């Protein structure tokens, strides 16, 4: 039988990998991928806690949260990719650090 903290370790690992990628990846699509990874880690956590602590007494909040995260991930992917594509159209680059027209 699998103890709960295995899942948590797994999600922690995925989260950290995603964090690293999100900060260091040059390509903005890569940043998007990393963020999706982090979201997945969060989902694993939620579902694990749900299964181990909440499901026995029929508490559904965690599942609702997971659904919300799915929606957020989809929305974020759609909008993010749209932005990346339009940015690519305008300035021919997808390297996040080159898109710094907001610098002071």
């Amino acid at each position, binding site marked *: 039988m699998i103890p709960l*903290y295995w899942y*948590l370790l797994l999600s922690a690992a995925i989260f950290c990998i995603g964090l690293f990628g999100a900060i260091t990846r040059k*390509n903005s699509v890569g940043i998007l991928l990393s963020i999706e990874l982090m979201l997945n880690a969060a989902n694993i956590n939620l579902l694990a806690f749900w299964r181990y602590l909440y499901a026995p007494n029929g508490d559904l909040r965690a599942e*609702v949260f997971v659904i919300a995260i799915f929606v957020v991930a989809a929305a974020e992917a*759609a909008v993010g990719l749209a932005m990346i594509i339009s940015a690519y159209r305008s300035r021919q680059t997808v390297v996040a650090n080159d898109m710094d027209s907001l610098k002071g």
Partner: protein
Amino acid sequence: MTGIQILFIVNALVIIFSAVMTVTARHMIHAALWFVLALLGVAVVYAMLEAGFFAVVQVLIYVGAIAILIIFAVMLTRRALEDQEKPFNRASLVTLLIVGIVFVGLILSIRFWPLLQSTTVPLSPDQLTVGTLGLALTDPQQFALPFEVTSILLLAAMIGAIYIAHERKEKGK
């Protein structure tokens, strides 16, 4: 070490490895492929958590929609992706340090928590059906409002994405 544990460990290794490859792969397209593999692994994890619905939805949404979207974006921005220099910016080492600290912190915090040794209790089948979740989502006394809010968010995202990505023929109006 029961079979299910072995299965979990193998699966976890697959996920972590493909996640690392996702982050480090040079070619964006390969990164996306590894990403898909990691997502499938995560779906397996969901299935092991007896959340079959979410496992399938994971495959449906991520592999079916998001991954394809991403690969599309990769192809549309193809020319910029032929760069062969290393895919990280110069902050990578510092970040590695930070992330390591975060990871260690997480592990410690996990270790110090007695609750987390708990194991599962078998669920009655009606607790695992999609029906209960669906009813809860449409019950105004439970989660109807958050559900509607998420749907509105999705709608707004769709409109926004279309509005951003669609190239305007003439400037102004």
